[in-house]
C-alpha cells in the first residue's frame, strides 16, 4: 500500500473546476515528481492534499482518509507542505521560523540532533539565525523552508517548485539535500517542478498533469527516454 493515494480527486476554486479526477500515489520512502505546464493544476493538487481547497474523491495518507480534515490536522499526520512562494514568515526571525517547524514535537533530544543536521546542510541559516527571515535571499528562503519542513519530522514532503527563481548552482545544492533527506530518513517526496529534467533525475516515478488530468504516468527513466512524451509534455 502506498503512503499517499489520490483517487479521482476533483477540486477547484468556487465555480471554476481545476482538477478533473486526478489519481496518483506516492510509495513509502520514494520521490515522485508531478510535472506539467503552467496552470495544469500541480499546486491545486498539493493544496487538495493539505486541505487548502475543497475536493471530492478520496485522498488517503498511511491508509487513513483525509476527507474533511483541516489543514492543521493533515500536517500533524506527518505531511510537510512547502507551498508555492515558500511560506516564509517574514515578520519573524530565521530561528522563529525553524521553531515553528519543530514546535509540535516532544522528542527533545532528537529535535536538537535535527537542528544540528539542518545547520550542517545549510550553514548560512546558522549564521542568520537571529535575523529577520525577510533579509534572506530567495535561495536562502528556500533553504529555510526546506529546513523547517524537515524539522517537522515528516513522513512525506510536498515541495512546490523548489527551484523557482533560483540560480542553477543553488538549485543543485538544494536538490542534493532533498535527496539526502529522502535516503537517510526515508522521507517520501511529492515534487512539483517545471524543470522536468531535474525532477526526473531525482524521482523514481513521475506523473504529467495536463489541464487537471493525469496525461502520462510512468517510471522516471521511461519518461526521460520517451521522445514523444518529452517533446509534447516536458518541453526539452
Amino acid at each position, binding site marked *: 500500500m502506498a503512503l499517499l493515494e489520490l483517487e479521482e480527486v476533483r477540486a477547484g476554486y468556487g465555480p471554476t473546476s481545476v482538477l478533473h479526477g486526478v489519481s496518483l500515489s506516492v510509495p513509502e520512502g520514494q520521490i515522485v515528481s508531478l510535472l506539467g505546464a503552467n496552470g495544469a493544476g500541480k499546486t491545486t493538487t498539493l493544496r487538495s492534499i*493539505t486541505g*487548502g481547497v475543497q475536493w471530492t474523491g478520496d485522498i488517503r495518507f498511511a491508509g487513513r482518509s483525509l476527507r474533511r480534515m*483541516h*489543514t*492543521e490536522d493533515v*500536517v*500533524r499526520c506527518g505531511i510537510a*507542505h512547502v*507551498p508555492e512562494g515558500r*511560506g*516564509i*514568515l517574514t*515578520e*519573524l526571525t530565521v530561528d*522563529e521560523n525553524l*521553531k*515553528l*517547524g519543530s*514546535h*509540535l514535537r516532544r522528542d527533545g533530544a532528537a529535535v536538537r540532533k535535527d537542528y544540528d543536521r539542518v545547520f550542517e546542510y545549510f550553514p548560512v541559516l546558522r549564521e542568520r539565525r537571529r535575523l529577520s527571515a525577510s533579509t534572506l535571499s530567495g535561495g536562502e528562503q528556500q533553504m529555510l523552508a526546506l529546513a*523547517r519542513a524537515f524539522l*517537522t519530522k515528516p513522513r512525506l514532503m510536498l515541495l512546490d517548485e523548489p527551484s523557482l527563481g533560483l540560480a542553477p548552482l543553488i538549485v543543485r545544492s538544494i536538490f542534493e539535500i532533498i535527496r539526502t533527506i529522502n535516503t537517510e530518513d526515508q522521507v517520501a517526496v511529492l515534487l512539483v517542478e517545471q524543470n522536468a529534467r531535474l525532477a526526473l533525475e531525482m524521482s523514481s516515478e513521475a506523473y504529467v498533469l495536463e489541464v487537471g488530468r493525469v496525461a502520462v504516468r510512468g517510471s522516471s527513466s521511461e519518461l526521460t527516454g520517451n521522445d514523444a512524451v518529452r517533446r509534447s509534455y516536458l518541453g526539452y
Partner: protein
Amino acid sequence: MQELLQQVVSGIATGGIFASLALALVLIYNAMGLVNFAQGEMAMLATFVALALIDHGMNYWIAFPVTLVIAFAGGIAIERVVIRPVERAPILTLVIVTLGLATLINGLAGFIFGYVPRAFPSPFPVQTVNILGALASYQDLGVIAVSAVVLLAIYLLLQHTTVGLTMRAAAHHPEASRLLGVRVSWMLALGWGLASAVGSVSGIMVAPILLLQPNMMQTIIIYAFAAAVLGGIESPIGAVVGGVIVGVTVNLAGVYLPFVGGDLQLAVALAIIVGVLVLKPNGLFGRPSVRRV
C-alpha cells in the same frame, strides 16, 4: 520643576492605564485586522466582576488575578460565540459586530449593576513619598508597578514562549501557519482572551479614580485609541510607549495649558489621533504598509 516631575509621574501612571487597554486593542488588531470597539466595555464588565469578588470578602490581591482569569475565559467565550461565526466576513461587518457587543455589554452591566457610581477599593495607601524632591503618591507608583508587571508578562509570553510564537505566526501569516500545524482559529480566540485580560487591568486600575459605573471606560477607550494609533496600531511596544506619552501629555496639558483644564483633556487625545493619522499614519513603531491579515 518639582511640580513638573510630580505631574510626569502621575502622567506615567495614567499612561499605564491607557497602555493596558491600548495593548488589548493591538492584540486583537494584530490577530484579525480589527479594532475592537467593545474592549473598554469588556474591561468595565471585568471590573464589576472584581468588585463583586472583593465585596464577597475576597482579598484584593486574590480577586485581581482571579478576575484576569475570568476575563481571559470571557474573552475566549466572546470570540467563539460572537466573532467566530463572522470571522471571514468583511471588516466593516466585524466592526459593527464589536460596536453591537459594546452596546450589549454596556446595557447588560447597567441592567445588572445599575448606573449609580460605586467606590472601588485601591490597594495602595493614599500617602505620598518623596522621590528626588518630588512628591509621588503610592497610588500612582502602584499603578505604574502593576501595569509594568502585566505589560512585561505579555511581552515575555509573546516573545519567549511557543504559544506566543504561534500566536504571532497565526496573526501575520494564517495560511503558512496552518501548514505548520498551528491552530489559527484557536490562536484568534487566545488573542481575544489575552486582550480581555490585559484590558481588564486597565479597568481595575482606573476604577478607584473614576468610580465604577457602566460608562466608566468610554473616555479611557478614546485615550487608548490615541495611544494605539500613536504607537502604530500593529505594535505592542508602540501601544505601551504611546500610552505613556498620551498619559503624560494629557496630564501636563491639563495642568499647564489654562484653556485645556480638566474638560478639554479628551480633546487633546483626539488631537493626537488626528495629528498622527495626518502626519505619521503608521505611528511611531508601525511598519509602512498597513494590510489586512
